[in-house]
Structures are given as C-alpha cells and as structure tokens.
C-alpha cells in the first residue's frame, strides 16, 4: 500500500510538472535598430514582429506554447549588434529576428551561426546569403534579385539611356550601387554621375547639384529612409524634374511622411508594401495602424511575415529545435492559404533567399500606389 501511495505521488508530481514544461514560452529575440540612423527601419520591423507575436499568442501560440519576444536596440551599430547576438544566444533564443541593417547582420550573424540559432534579417545586401551560413534567412528580396527588375523598368518604361546613381556609403548602399550599375550595364544603359553620400547625411544640396549637372535621364536613389526623404526634399527644392527611381526604400511610408509633397512622382520597386492589393496585407495594414497609430513601411511587413514563417515552419517540424528548423527552411514553401500571416506565398532557397511576387510603386498625392505587380522570379 505504501509502495502504491509512493507511485501515485510520483505520478501526481510528474503530471503536475508536464503542463509547466509545455507552457514554457518559446524565446524569440529581436535585434533591432531602435536608435541611430536605422531607427525607422528597426522600429517598424520590431513593431511588425510584436504584432505577429501578439496575434500568434492570442490564437494559442506555436505548438501550444506562448511566444516570448524581447527586443534590444543595436543602436544601428554593428559592434553592438554582435554583442547583443551573443547575449541572445546565451539567453537561449530559439530564433533571432534582425538586425535590419545589412552592415549589422553581416557582423552579428557569426554569433547565431556558431550557436546554430536561426536568424531572420531585413538586410538586403547580396553578401548576407553568399557566405554559406545555413542559419540565415531573409525577410525581403536580395539586391541581386531586385536590381535587375529595376533596371528593366528603367529601360522599358522610362526609355533612359543614362542614369545617375546616388547611394549611401554603407554595406546596404554599396551593395545596391554595385548591383544596380551591373544591372543597368547589362541592359545597355550608361551610368552618369556616381554620387556617394554618407549615412545620416543631412545636407544633400551638393549631391543634388551634382546630379543636375550630370544631366542623366533618370536619377536612381538608394539610401536609407531619412536620407531618402532629405534627398527628395532637396531634389524638389532645387527643381529637379527628371524621374527619380529607387528600390524599396524610396517610396516607403516613412519616406513619404518625411518628404511630404517632395515624394510625389518617385517610383520604386518594392518587395512588400502596405498598399499591395492583397487581402492579407490590407488586414495587416488596418491592424498595424490600430496598434501603433501609424502606417507600417516595408520593414513592418518584413518583421510580421517573418514571424509567421517561424510559426509555420516550427509547426511543420512539430518541435522547437533550431537545427531542425534551419534544415526545414531550405526549400520551404509557405502558402497564404495555410498560414495567412505570411501575407504572400513565399519560398526559400538553399541560401536562405526568398522568392515571391513584388510590386512597382509610385507616390501620387502623398500616397504609395501600386502600379504593377511583378511575378516571382521562379514563376518565369
């Protein structure tokens, strides 16, 4: 009888412990630019992840476990990002979200790779997924896939023969500059003025004057949000009247808000936009505005959809295991009909690059308007 009592007691303890283990939250850590030159990008990305986590938890979490999301400020500084990545690993993160800046992720991803922790990034520099890191995954297009689409548009729609390129001198900008020049030349378009600007640059008067003097048919602007807004304001101030084209950032919500009327007429290829004519994205737009009283730019969509990719793939493998997660991500295809939160059907290749539809957008009357939907590269 005594033995029976002991067994019952042990079973009772075991049963009592089981829910505790099952209820342990899944730790997701955000490394985001909440200050410094990347504050706009990082804040949007962070808010997107937070919104997704809130929805996922409200719907019962992932595999019945709640998601515990904490974010840290990289200060837009690669060194800080690296230290925070190490801390995230030490804290037992299942997945790391961010940083958004290419310069930061290029440095910090060594820590997550070493610890075999999957790492999603908003960075677009081609080099990020060219280093053979099996734990890095994008939430947006790489410059390698986006720039040829931009060059094709400049040639076919704008009929330009010479293009001036204004870019920000960081990893993001330099990668974009190299890729757009390569893509333009592949289309037989000549590059006119090659105008380098600084991260955080506030005065674009001489840069714009240089573009005006060069007399190219089109100006391609590839800088971060605040700099893009300042460049557009200066272009308007100096009466620049030729087409201004960009990739992703130039027509983003934040740039439109900061540049005001000066953003009108700007055209950009975007991988994600809150103005996309898709039901999932329209719902996201409404929810995001209700939550944060502001519209999301593409970075908010990156964070949001990225978090839902984490949910979809974790539920597919049926366990919280970073190594198995990373293995399942390569070649994964996640459909909106199965996981509406991914917003658009998306697939990942062996490098962690994504493929999905994209959009050509234009700013009209202070609003980003989708003028064309471009198919995924894999659909061609």
């Amino acid at each position, binding site marked *: 009888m005594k033995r029976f009592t002991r067994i019952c007691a042990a079973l009772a303890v075991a049963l009592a412990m089981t829910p505790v283990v099952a209820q342990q939250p899944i730790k997701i850590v955000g490394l985001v630019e*909440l200050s*410094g030159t990347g504050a706009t990008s990082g*804040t949007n990305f962070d808010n997107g992840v937070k919104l997704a986590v809130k929805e996922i938890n409200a719907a019962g979490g992932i595999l019945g476990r709640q998601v515990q999301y904490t974010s840290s400020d990289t200060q837009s500084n690669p060194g800080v990002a690296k230290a925070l990545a190490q801390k995230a690993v030490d804290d037992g993160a299942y997945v790391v979200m961010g940083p958004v800046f290419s310069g930061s992720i290029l440095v910090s991803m060594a820590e997550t790779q070493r610890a075999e922790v999957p790492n999603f990034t908003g960075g677009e520099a081609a080099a990020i997924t060219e280093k053979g890191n099996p734990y890095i995954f994008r939430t947006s297009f790489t410059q390698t896939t986006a720039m040829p689409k931009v060059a094709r548009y400049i040639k076919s729609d704008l009929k330009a023969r010479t293009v001036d390129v204004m870019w920000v001198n960081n990893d993001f900008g330099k990668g974009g500059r190299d890729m757009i020049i390569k893509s333009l030349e592949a289309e037989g378009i000549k590059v006119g003025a090659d105008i380098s600007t600084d991260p955080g640059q506030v005065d674009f*008067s*001489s840069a714009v*004057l240089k573009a005006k*003097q060069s007399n190219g048919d089109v100006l391609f602007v590839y800088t971060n949000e605040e700099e893009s807004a300042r460049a557009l304001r200066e272009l308007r*101030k*100096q009466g620049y009247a030729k087409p201004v084209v960009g990739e992703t950032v130039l027509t983003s919500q934040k740039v439109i808000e*900061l540049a005001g009327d000066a953003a009108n007429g700007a055209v950009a290829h975007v991988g994600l936009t809150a103005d996309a004519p898709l039901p999932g994205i329209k719902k996201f737009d409404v929810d995001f505005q209700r939550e944060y009283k502001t519209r999301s730019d593409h970075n908010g969509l990156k964070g949001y959809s990225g978090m839902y990719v984490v949910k979809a793939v974790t539920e597919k493998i049926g366990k919280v295991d970073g190594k198995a997660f990373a293995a399942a991500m390569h070649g994964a295809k996640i459909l909106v009909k199965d996981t509406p939160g991914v917003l658009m059907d998306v697939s990942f290749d062996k490098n962690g690059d994504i493929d999905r539809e994209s959009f050509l957008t234009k700013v009209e009357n202070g609003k980003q308007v989708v003028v064309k939907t471009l198919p995924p590269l894999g659909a061609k």
Partner: protein
Amino acid sequence: MADLVQLLVSGIATGAIYALAALGFTLLWQAAGVINFAQGEFVMLPAFAMLFGIAFGLPMWLAFLVACVLAAIVLGLGFKLVIVDPLIRHGVIPLVIATLGVSIAVKSIVRAGYSAEAHPLASPFPSGQLSLAGVTVSYADIGTLVLAGVIVVALQAFLNKTVTGRAMQAVAQNTDSARVLGINVRRMVMYVFVINAVLAVVAALLITPTYLAKFDMGDSIGQKAFFAAIIGGFNQTRGALLGGVLIGVLENLVGFYVSPAYKEGVALLLFLLVILFRPEGLLGKAEERKV
C-alpha cells in the same frame, strides 16, 4: 559659373543657420563664461516644441512664437537658474560637464517620449525656385538668408545701438567694471541666456525642414556651431558669423567639386587648421589667462 553661384548661395544659407547657433556659443561665453555643449539640443527642443504646437492645430507662426516663449523660459531662464548659477562658481570644467550631461539627458528624454524616429517639419518658406541668368536659387535658401540676416543685423544693432546692448557688451568685456558703473550684471547675463534661447528657436525653424526633427539632430548642428565659433573666434560675435558661413560654403564646395562623402569633414579640418595656426580664431583676440 552658375553652379558656383548656386553653391555659394545655398552654402551661405546653411552657414547662416550654423552662425545663429554659433552666436549663442559666443554670447554665453562672453557674458557668463559658459561653454554650452548642449547648444545642439537647445536647437532640437524648440523643433519638437513647434511640432507639438502644430499637432495641436496652431499655425506655424504661432507655434514658432510659443516655442520662443517656452525656450526663453526653459532654455534661457531655467538653464541659467538651475544649471549655470549653482555651478559657475566652481569654474568652467564642472559647467562643461554639466552641459554635456544636459545634452545626454535631453536626448534620452526626447527619444523615450517622442520615439527615435525622425519627424518632418514644413518649411516656413514657399517651395519653388528663382531662376536668374542661369542661376537657380530656391525660395527656401533666399528666405533662410533673409531671415538669418535680419536676425543678425537686428542683434548687432541691439548690442551696439541700445543702452541695454551696450551694457551687455560692457558685462562681456569686464564684469567688475560693469558692476562699478552701476550696470545690473545679473539682469544683463539673464538677457544673454534668453537671446541665446531665441536664436536657437530661429535656428530650429530654419534647419529642421532639412535635418528633420529627431532626438539626435542637435549633434550635428551643435558640433558645427562649436567649430564655427572656434574658427571665427570664441570671443567675437562677428567671428561666429564668419565661422558659420565659411563652414557652410566650404562644405558645399567640397561636396560638389570633391565628393559629397567628404563634406562632413570640412568643419573638422578647418577647426584643426585654426587651432594649430591661429588658436584665437580668425577674428578673435588673444586672451591672457587670469591668475
């Protein structure tokens, strides 16, 4: 040639804004022996005050006036009474450290309370350009030049032509003698702090449409203003003007003729050259250390 004229005009316009902030540096130094390393934040705070005013439905001119009043009270009187007066008797260094602390604290508070993101402030001038003989100059640059010019001329007239202005100059030159002459030194010093605060609001009005309102927008303007004051001569108000305009123009020329990537280094290079070869500044007078 048209490019050069355009570069000069926009450079002078930008330099005039640096000069307004630099004027504050020199005025505070002359009148109260204060080097205010929170000068950039003194420009940033009014920018946010104007944003608040506009968000509450005030027209820009009224938001500007409200910001002037608030700045005069908080950044003028408040700064003097709470920070400067208790510390000034301990010498320049504790005060410098205190202003650095104010700078960090103000940035942190604004960042926590208003987010780290940039916010737009509309230009007080109409958009568009004036084209004359192949030279295109924006109305914004013309407006900036005119407004900054009027402020500087009015300030010089006030300092040189009015009894109060002359009294302030007397305090700046020799406090003890001014006191013997019956000048209310405390009041004159107070006026200087208030003028500095109002100059910061004007600088904020002119520069925020370009810089965008952000918690760290003062870093750049504060640094440029400090360099401008040193380059021109810390003990000369005219020096601050020269320093500001020199930096603005040279930045534009380097940005255009060399590379925009190098323009941010112009002020630092000029500052180093002046410190090495003419430490008192281009228009400054050498001062002997008091024992």
